[in-house]
């Protein structure tokens, strides 16, 4: 199952080759997330309305390899924006993907930009 993870590599903004137009900002719940399909990838995108920011990460939780992170609840851990997996409440930083309550590998995060009410996710491939 772990090969699922190999599809997802953290992408920095300077490495972005493709800005994928995912959906309208209105398709995402306020202070919540939804899942976007890009090629064979599932990307969780979060509308952090409280601080006016957007984040994206892999949808698969590395704990048990289920495609569920987009359905997780978001919040912050000492100021670091995070998402909690709905299955076992493992929490991950949305800034750098770090596992905040354990020692799992970090999840992949992706840059997000908003243009004309549309949400774009940055990929290097």
């Amino acid at each position, binding site marked *: *199952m772990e090969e*699922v993870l190999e599809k997802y590599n953290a992408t920095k903004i300077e490495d972005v080759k493709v800005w994928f137009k*995912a*959906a309208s900002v209105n*398709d*995402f*719940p*306020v*202070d*919540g997330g*939804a*899942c*976007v*399909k890009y090629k*064979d990838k*599932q990307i969780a*995108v979060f509308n*952090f309305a*409280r*601080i006016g920011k957007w984040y994206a990460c892999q949808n*698969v939780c590395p704990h*048990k*390899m*289920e*495609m*569920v992170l987009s*359905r*997780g*609840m*978001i*919040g*912050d*851990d*000492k*100021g670091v*924006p*995070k998402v*909690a997996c*709905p*299955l076992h*409440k493992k*929490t991950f930083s949305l800034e750098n993907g770090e596992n905040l309550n354990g020692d799992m590998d970090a999840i992949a995060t992706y840059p997000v930009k908003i243009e004309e009410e549309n949400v774009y996710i940055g990929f290097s491939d």
Partner: protein
Amino acid sequence: MKKIIVVGNGMVGYKFCEKFVAQDTSKDFEITVFGEEPRPAYDRVHLSEYFENQNAEALEMAPRSWYKANGIELITSERVSDINRASKTIKTAKDREFSYDYLIMATGSSPFVPPIKGVEKEGVFVYRTIEDLEGMLAYAAKLNKEKPNARAAVLGGGLLGLEAGKAVLDMGLEPHIVEFAPKLMPRQLDSRSSQVLKLKLESIGLNIHLSKATNQILGDGKITGMEFGEDDRLDVDMLIVSAGIRPRDELAKACGLEVGVRGGIVVDNTMKTSDKNIYAIGEIALYNHMIYGLVAPGYDMAEVAVKQILGETNVVMPADIDMSTKLKLIGVDVASFGEPFMPADKGHSIIFENKTQYLYKRINVSHDGKKLLGGILVGDASDYSMLHQIYLNGMKIPEDPAQLILPAADGNAAFGDVMDLPDEAQVCSCESVTKGQICEAIESGEANDLASVVSCTKAGTGCGGCKPMVKDLTDATLKSLGIEVKDSICEHFDLNRQELYDIIQVKGYRTFNEVIDNHGKGCGCELCKPLIASLMATIHADTANKEYAIQDSNDRFLANIQRNGTYSVVPRVPGGEITPDKLIALGEIAKKYDLYTKITGGVRVDLFGATLNQLPLIWKDLISHGFESGHAYGKSLRTVKTCVGSTWCRYGMDESVSFGIELENRYRGIRAPHKIKGGVSGCIRECAEARGKDFGLIAVEGGWNLYVGGNGGATPRHAELLAEQIDNETVIKYLDRYLMFYMRTAKPLQRTAAWQERLEGGMEYLKEVIIDDKLGIATDLEKEMQTLVNRFECEWTQAINNPEMMKRFSHFVNSKEEDDNLVFVPIREQKMPEPWN
């Protein structure tokens, strides 16, 4: 640089390495470890967990990378075949040669297979390694396919044999335990406790055969049965032998080390063998003429060997080794400590036995009544840690020692406070952590909560049995330092649930942001968001659809998220009464969406495997047949279970079904600190198990008896009597008050049982509030409940009728496709998610 070779990479071999590299003086040594199994050391004590999740990694003591990071060379799948003591070298089965300065023998033991005729037949297994387990799983899978109701026997009713019995249950075979002795766990239990354990195990489906000597294994090539006497046979398709262990001392014998008559390498209290450069530790070491088959003494031996090699020669094994054990066998607590079997000349035994609850407790007390010498606990070992400490430290016991095991009448434990323990009291025996070390970690500022105590002392990381005591100690120490153990809900709010309840009610807040902007900080989290959602629901009767992004996952999607991220749907079936037409509708809907279907323990039909996209479609179908949401996902009323009652039952005293339906419909949808279940039984036969529920009614002559605060959860508890012989109207009045009082004052995720237990004044106080209206709030409580009842709305219907709300229920926002990661496998003509690995 000096070389150490460790032969054997089991739990004790690993512990040697761990303890060795933790010493500052260990840098001058190079360690090589040989294991003949293919994987690094794993936790054999919890081997049976492998049957539940088949995750070998979860059992690992440390990953391969740990050995590397600590400069230890780990060589697996390679057996050491020869020791040359003169040249201080070893040879492996692959004919490689290595030299050593110190050799650590940690070869452990192997399962003993008695010389029974036919024991070599196909289908006979031993229970020791992950490979053994994999062999069994494959064989069981084949049996399950070929033969319905296949049976497997376990030879040996000791500790490990009973674990193997659980494994058989988990593999879906009919389990039989065959024991030679007239009792189970003959080393740990006396006959009476063994009898109680037997009854309990039988109640969960194990077949137990005692005093059976197996003459031969029957079958042509593969096992078909066991023969005990001429006309005494048991047909079985598989056999797991768990008849004890034998030390793996063949290497030691071959190189001339001194071994015992019945095996095991002879060691002194420094763990040295007859060769001063060779140490033996764990189940291979014969110390005091005994092999100790427990992990804790093995770990102590590892510690002694480490210290000896590093020159701390004053560290030796104690003369007496504590053989106390506590474990959970197939969900049954079993513990024995000190001297479990009492020779009459040493003292008296006090025994408490209740076979109806599968409980047995025995303590052995010195003649003068001052000392606790040992004991046995079966069924409930929650007092084990404290009893064990009293025994180990020779602490004073109450004047009436029976108080130590009798349920206390006033709810106060007979024991003193954990803080009364002496500093040297060993709290965690697996990791040898004392009370002093735990307190010191907190007092020095190194640790400030339970998690940090565990990570810096390692207490509780072995078998975990001491965790409750570690928590009590941590809390008490923090308190003694004047650090308030706050019950504030999370880092975003300095308030507890009760305070937030009052604030939201008084200020009338309607959104999460209003609450956090005015009374908290930051953005909130997975703890405070659902809590505030629940409070607002209780106060304003909002459904979970109102602000769905702050709801817990299940409330957000109005269904229960399951193992693979799909959902189960549970329509309400009030009181468990259902028409044939509705039952057919459920079947048809389940078929249409290919849902795994199961009748739950709470008189419901549970439909599993729905994807996010399917949820609204399924609800539409269900709603069109007159169903509504069963709120099985929420911290809300789940079911009111009923028996059949006086309409059909020849014993029924009252109409439990009608009343159960009325109550379920009354309280459906209300949201509480935790889930709530009810039960209504038509007579004292209690077929609805009403006393195992948060509220329960039993029909008696002259009305209903109302019980509150029971549950069947992790810590099962019978409900307590609140009122007797009351009519329907009074039941509702009291229940309104009781539930509302609970919803207003309980802590987050605190069930009624725990809430009630911590109410100051206990049941008497509760009666005064609910029945006598001592606080003068009864009318308010009733009114609040009535508001919630009046505002009920089915959340499913609400969601499917609102296009904006429906946006939630698609897997992707930019595609109609479903999750392509889902894999289902068949199980008994239905499906289930692929097991986690």
